[in-house]
């Protein structure tokens, strides 16, 4: 029997009007994962970002999951806090947390990966940093490196492939 190939499809986002008339916009590749913690699950759309060293979850994408579990995430000082540059114009503080990440292949069969991800501290509600809270969660190279990442704009196709 030959190797089993499992394909996990993603999709492209819509193109927003470009920020400047001389710039063109290109749709961003996305993939949706189920984040697991305790007995809770939350489906989260990630932007695939091969420039990100590791996967970063925006707090607001999973906060409801922790609230349902009767917990919240602390961003106080501790050995599991790190600083990440490249999210907005300033560095962001992130808590490293082990979580389950579940993907579904094109046949509907789940694959769950347990690994550490960075959870970005949300900007204060009264923040002067504009709309940093709107940034999406990022699927970085730590997870991408487990798969073959297929990205094509013509024809449009986004997927992760696992060769068992």
């Amino acid at each position: 029997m030959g190797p089993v190939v499992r394909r996990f499809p993603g999709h492209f986002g819509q193109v927003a009007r470009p920020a400047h008339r001389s710039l063109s916009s290109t749709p961003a590749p996305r993939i949706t994962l189920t984040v697991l913690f305790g007995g809770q699950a939350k489906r989260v759309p990630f932007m695939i970002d091969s420039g990100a060293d590791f996967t970063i979850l925006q707090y607001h994408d999973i906060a409801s999951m922790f609230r349902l579990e009767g917990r919240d995430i602390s961003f106080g000082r501790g050995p599991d806090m790190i600083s990440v540059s490249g999210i907005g114009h300033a560095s962001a503080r992130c808590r490293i947390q082990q979580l389950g990440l579940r993907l579904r292949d094109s046949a509907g069969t789940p694959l769950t990966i347990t690994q550490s991800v960075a959870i970005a501290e949300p900007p204060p509600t009264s923040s002067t940093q504009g709309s940093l809270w709107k940034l999406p969660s990022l699927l970085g190279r730590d997870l991408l490196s487990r798969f073959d990442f297929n990205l094509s704009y013509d024809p449009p196709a986004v997927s992760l492939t696992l060769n068992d």
Partner: protein
Amino acid sequence: MVTDEDTLPFDIRMVTPGTPEYAEVEAIDLEAQRNLDYFIEHEAVLMEQYRDQIVVVYNGGKIQPCASPDEMMDFLLSLDRITCSSAMHFTWPEEGTAWAL
């Protein structure tokens, strides 16, 4: 004062076919896929209409725009557990803003 005692435990409990929550997580995934399918089909319209807000898609195609993360959290936690967990929310760069991630 925040201490390390407030941090989350590192021994997460995974949901597998043997755990009681498995059927519920399966239901969440299926419902979330309906929400995602709806969103993909309608994203262009939703973006035009709600570009400066957060759009929550739930129940396979119901839309709740929210002005802030706090407002979204209040809305999500007002839903039943499976609807809350399967709801998906989306944002876009504001007009004149680009994301370089």
